[in-house]
């Protein structure tokens, strides 16, 4: 039996996800702003949510995640665990398209960074997706 991957999501599914690329890059063929679709749109959404501070969104102060503030705490296993829980709570609350499988937070104590890997399933599809990014204090 063939393994289903994210490449199979492009066609034949019941619903498309289309979003603007947060980089606002130019699509060289259409001369319009680039789009991100489907699995990539969801990945971008997860990153957006995690990297948004609470209170940052206009008139919607609850949306966002507290990890950026936690990065200013002395990095120790307790803070890393809190970061992980924050991410889980945020995604569960605001990204209704996915079902979390796991969230891994690997700290780099020397450089005060945390490597985050989020594994999730898109609701309604038997596909496990993963998004990774590094959290570090904004300079």
């Amino acid at each position, binding site marked *: 039996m063939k393994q289903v991957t994210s490449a199979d999501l492009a066609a034949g599914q019941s619903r498309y996800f*289309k*979003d603007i690329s947060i980089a606002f890059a130019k699509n060289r063929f259409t001369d319009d702003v680039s789009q991100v679709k489907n699995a990539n749109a969801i990945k971008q959404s997860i990153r957006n949510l995690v990297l948004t501070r609470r209170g940052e969104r206009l008139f919607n102060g609850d949306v966002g995640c507290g990890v950026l503030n936690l990065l200013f705490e002395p990095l120790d296993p307790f803070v890393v665990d809190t970061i992980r829980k924050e991410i889980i709570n945020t995604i569960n609350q605001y990204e209704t398209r996915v079902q979390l499988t796991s969230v891994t937070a690997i700290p780099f104590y020397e450089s005060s960074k945390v490597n985050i890997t989020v594994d999730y399933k898109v609701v309604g599809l038997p596909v496990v997706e993963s998004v990774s990014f590094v959290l570090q204090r904004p300079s």
Partner: protein
Amino acid sequence: MQPNKLTALDFQDIKSSIKSYLRTRDEFTDYDFDGSSLSYLIDVLSYNSYYAAFIANMSMNEAFLPSATLRDNVVNIAKLLNYVPRSVTCSKACIKLEVQTSKTNLAYPSSVTLSRGPVARGSAYIWNILEDITVEVDTVTGKAEFDAVTINEGSIINFSYTVNTFQTQEYKIPSEDADIETLSVTVKANESSTTSDLYNRVETVTNLTGNTRSYFLSEGEDMRYQVRFGDDSIGRKLKDGEVINFEYLTCSGAEANEVTEFDFIGVVTDSNQVNVGGPDVVLITKDRSQMGSKAESVESIKYMAPRYYASQYRAVTAQDYAVITKNLYSNAESVIAYGGDSLTPPIYGKVYVAVKTKTGTALNDQSKKDLQTKLRAYSMASIDPVVIDPDELYIYPKVFVLYDTGVTNNTSDIKTNIQNAINDWATQTQINNFNSTFRNQQFQKAITLSDKAISDVSVQTSLLKYIKADTDQTNTYCISTGGALYNSAPSNTDGACVKEPVILSGNFRTADRPGIDQQFEDDGFGKLKIFYNTGNKKVYTNNSAGSINYDTGEICIGPINLVGTGDQIPGPTNLNLTDPVTGLGEVIDTTLLPTTTDLPVLFIPANNTTIPASTPGTVISVVNPEVTVAPIGTIPPTTIPLNSLTPTTFNTTPTLVEVNLITNTGDPDSSTCF
């Protein structure tokens, strides 16, 4: 797609409108997810639209008087109506100074002068006179008396501008707490000039010529008043190099009211140029400080400006008199005016202006005369304005509340809630004012809703009026309640038909019985009876002391010669009693009696559900009620307070329910719109 909800002003509404539009397009689909970039973009778009919509809405609102909220904008619109808002008014007090001069070359000086500037300190405020006052010295005793000196709280400020016609100049009074009533504008030819011209404030261009020394006043930004001069056509134009001097008081307004004690700090100089001070100057307070008030509120400007404009600086209708009086007399809380033709019997050619003051006290005769003189300048020929005191009718409710013990047992909480509810009710109904009506149903409803534990409310209502009597004069005093009085049913006691009294006065002393407190009540059949109480029975001293009309509520007591009421009674050393038991005797020295005295009279109205003001000049005032709280099951007392009237508790003017002012300071932070 046509845009929908163009009137949406709320952020969320605008956002949903944009989403509705995106639903009709297929370029992007993720607008519904909070994490999508599109959602972030929609937020920014909505915020931008919201901001623009708010600015547009605010700008339009601020352009019209009824909807403007910021003081500067309200004032600017009022300026088009030639309305100058009242500034802070400095508190005034009246003092008397007794000065003992000393001899120079064996003779007393001919006069003494009290210099302008600070003259007294009282309650951490400085009190000033604005002009020098000179009085003559008694050549025999060397004493001089500055009688009835009006002192104003505040600091005297002098501020100058040099006119420069080569640039645009604005002459602003650089203090927001300046009392413009004390503003004096003088202009001198140049810096070194020693003489100056006094300029007068004018409000209209009538009678102004190119040479008239006059200025116009208007309120500018941040409550700083602006002075404008003429153009050589309407009022004299200022010339280059002239120096304008503003002199005015800055003060604390109403905060400095009610000061009664002052210490002299002024300068008194006699005609020999010798300073008199220290123990040689005795300061006596004649009238406590009063009439200080805050600057006119935004709400008041919005109310007054169009009405003042409608009266066109002349008093034609009765309403014109009321509006102009409020503008002329800042201590007026509310004013009502009515023609004498509406009275019974009619008095033609007079307009009655009843003034209710902010301090609650009645205007003295001098203030009334001043106000009448000022009003006459606006009135039509042959119409005589008469300033009168409002006719005060007090309502004394006694509240009995039954509460459900299953809900709470905390009676103090219930009482607090009731008190708050009564204050809210008073504010909403604006009771304690002209043209107000006491509606018992509303009053009871407010109390019922004040606490969920309250199950029943019962209110006993009695009315209170004061007879303002002159002491040591035989007069007949009449008061009217303006409505019918309760007519109690007769009972047959020992074969005599007796009715319960529905009116009872406070204690008073008469000239023939100055040794004993007496009261009067009605006999139920139209007559008043005077009695005194021995402790266990009433002894009637006059069974026909006056009359009472139960249908009209008119009560007349007299002829009677009162020498005191309540606690204001002649001292025992001033009495020559022939019979101490019955109080018969006489007052030895009648000059020691107060000139007037107030006698409270309580009575039971026929209708206690609705009590309206009987005449236009009547002020209905609700006395702070006595609240009794009892658990459910207790039998409430009768609503008609027969045999339980307590007028002696009103020997002093009662405390009224609080009626909070509905004000708006014009500060955007405190505005309810944002």
